C-alpha cells in the first residue's frame, strides 16, 4: 500500500521539472536535518551517562579514565537512600489511590448523560493543566488554612489532584470505544452495577488502567515543584537531586540520574510490550465474540 503511494509520488514528482541532482541534494539535506533532530534529543542525555563513568571530580572532558566509583558511591549515601524510600512510598500510595479514584470517575462519567458529567470532567482536569507553581501554591494555601502540617499526606493528596484526571482520561478513552451492549447484556441478565463492572467492564479496561498507573507512577516519582510546596523536612528523591544539582555537587548525581533514566526506559519498553500484547488478545477476543 505504502509502496504504491510512493511510486505514485515519484511519478507526480517527475511530472514537475525538478532536476534529479537538485532532488538528490534536497533529499540529502532533509535526511541530515532529520537525523539532527534525533541527535539534538539524545546527545544531552548521553552526555550525562558519559560523565557518570568519567573518573574526574569536575564535569568536564577530556576523558580521564573509566570508573564505576560514582555508582558505588550511591549505595553509601544514606540521605540518598532515605529519599528514594520516601519517593517510592509517595508514588506507591499515589498510584494505588489514583487508579481506584480515576477509574471510578471514568465509569461514573461514562454512564451518565447530560451536561453535568462534562462540566465535572472539565473541572477535575484543571489541576493537570495549570502550571506546577500555581497548583503548588494554591494547595499550600489550602492545606495551611485547613491546618494540615506539611508532609507525606499533603504530598500524596497534592499528587492525586493531577494524577487522578490522567487516569480518568485514559480509562474514559478506553470505555468510550467499548460496545455498550456488553454492559446492557450483563444488566439484562440480572447482574447489578457492581457485578457488571467487576465481571464485564473491568477486564476490558484493565490494560488502560495499567497504562495509566504506569504513567501516574512516573509523573509522581519525578514531580518536583508541587512536592516542594507541600513537603516538610523529609525530601523525596527528585527534591534531593534538585538540591544536589543546583547547589552542592557530587558526580554520583550523574550516576543516579543515569540509573533512573535507564530504569524508566526499560520499564516503558516492557510496559508497552505487555500492553500491546494484551490489546491484541483483547482484539482477538472481540472478534471471537
Amino acid at each position, binding site marked *: 500500500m505504502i509502496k504504491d503511494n510512493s511510486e505514485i509520488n515519484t511519478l507526480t514528482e517527475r511530472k514537475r521539472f525538478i532536476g534529479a541532482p537538485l532532488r538528490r541534494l534536497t533529499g540529502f539535506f532533509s535526511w541530515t536535518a532529520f537525523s539532527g533532530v534525533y541527535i539534538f534529543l539524545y546527545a544531552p542525555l548521553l552526555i550525562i551517562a558519559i560523565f557518570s563513568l568519567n573518573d574526574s571530580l569536575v564535569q568536564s572532558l577530556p576523558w580521564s579514565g573509566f570508573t564505576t566509583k560514582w555508582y558505588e558511591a550511591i549505595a553509601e549515601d544514606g540521605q540518598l537512600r532515605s529519599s528514594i524510600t520516601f519517593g517510592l512510598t509517595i508514588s506507591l500510595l499515589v498510584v494505588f489511590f489514583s487508579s481506584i*479514584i480515576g477509574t471510578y470517575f471514568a465509569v461514573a462519567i461514562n454512564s451518565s448523560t447530560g451536561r453535568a458529567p462534562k462540566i465535572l470532567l472539565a473541572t477535575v482536569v484543571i489541576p493537570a493543566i495549570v502550571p506546577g507553581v*500555581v497548583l503548588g501554591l494554591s494547595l499550600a494555601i489550602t492545606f495551611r488554612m485547613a491546618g494540615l502540617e506539611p508532609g507525606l499526606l499533603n504530598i500524596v493528596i497534592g499528587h492525586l489532584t493531577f494524577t487522578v484526571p490522567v487516569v480518568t482520561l485514559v480509562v474514559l478513552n478506553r470505555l468510550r470505544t467499548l460496545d455498550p451492549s456488553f454492559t446492557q447484556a450483563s444488566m439484562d441478565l440480572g447482574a447489578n452495577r457492581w457485578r457488571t463492572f467487576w465481571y464485564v467492564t473491568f477486564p476490558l479496561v484493565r490494560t488502560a488502567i495499567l497504562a495509566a498507573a504506569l504513567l501516574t507512577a512516573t509523573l509522581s516519582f519525578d514531580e518536583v515543584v508541587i512536592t516542594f510546596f507541600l513537603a516538610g523536612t523529609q525530601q523525596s528523591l527528585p527534591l534531593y537531586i534538585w538540591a544536589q544539582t543546583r547547589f552542592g555537587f557530587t558526580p554520583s548525581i550523574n550516576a543516579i540520574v543515569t540509573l*533512573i533514566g535507564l530504569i524508566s526506559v526499560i520499564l*516503558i519498553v516492557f510496559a508497552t510490550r505487555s500492553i500491546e500484547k494484551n490489546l491484541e488478545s483483547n482484539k482477538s477476543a472481540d472478534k471471537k465474540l
Partner: protein
Amino acid sequence: MAKSVSLSSKRISFSKRLSLAPLLFWSILLVLTPNALMVVYSLWKSEDGVLKRVMSIDNYIEAFTNPVAISVLTRTIIVALGASTLATLIAYPTAWFVVRRLSKRRLLAVLLVIVPLWISFLIRVYSWKLVLGERGFINSTLLSLGLIDKPLTFMLYSSFAVFLTLTYVAIPFCFVSSYSALERLPNSLLEASADSGATPFQTFRTVIWPLTRQGAAIGFSLALLLSCGDYLTPAMVGGLNGTMFGSLVITQFGLTNNWPLGAAMSVILLLITAMFLAVLARITRTEGTLD
C-alpha cells in the same frame, strides 16, 4: 404501566446522579476551593510576614508596577513564545518527514521522539547544564580543539539557556500532535493537488497546512503551557539573567515569604496562559475535517 416505567427510569437517573456525587465533592474540595482561596489570598496583604486579612488590589498593583516583575514577565512571554515557535518549527517538518519518507521504521522513529518524555523532566533540564556549562561539553570540546582560549560563559545562566532548554523539552509534545494530524492526511488529496498543477509550496499552503494546523497549534499550546509557568528550567540553567515568572512565584513562597503577592502573581500567570490559549484556539480552527 407507563407511570411505573417513568418512575423506575427516574430512580435510575437519580442513582446515576448519585454516582457523580464523589466527582462533585472532589471538584469542590480539591479544585474549586484551592483556586478560590488563592484568589482570596491574592487580595490579602502580608506585612513583614504577618498576614493582614484586608481586601485590596495592592498586590496586583505591585506586580504590575514593580520594574523587576514587569521585565521578568516580558521575558517570560518572549522566551515562552520563542521556544514554543522554534519547537513547532522543528517538530512539524520532522513529523512530516516521518510520515512521508519512512514506512518500515516509522513506529521506531515516533517512539524515539517520545521516549525522552518518559525520562524525568528534571533530568532533561539538568542535562543542558552539563552541555552548556563553563566546563561543560561544548566548552571542553572547543577548548581541546583549540578553537577558543577560555570557556564561553554566555551560554549557561542566561535567557538563551532557558530558551534552548525549553525548546528541547517541548519538541516531543509538538511532534506528537503534529504527527497525529499529518498521519491522517490522505495521500489522494496531495496527488489531486499535484495533478491540478500546484507546486509543492502551493499544495502545502492550500491543502496540507489548513488541514493540519490545528495539530500544530495543539502542540504549540502544550509547549506554551509548559514553558510559561515552568520553574525548574529557569532555576537550573537560567541564573539571575534568565529568571522567569514561575521563579518569582516560588520566591514569594520561600525566600520572601509573601504568599499573598505570590498568589496574585499565580493568578496573573493563569490569566495570561488562558488568554494565549484562547487566542490560539480561535485563529487555528481547521477549514474542514479529516475523518
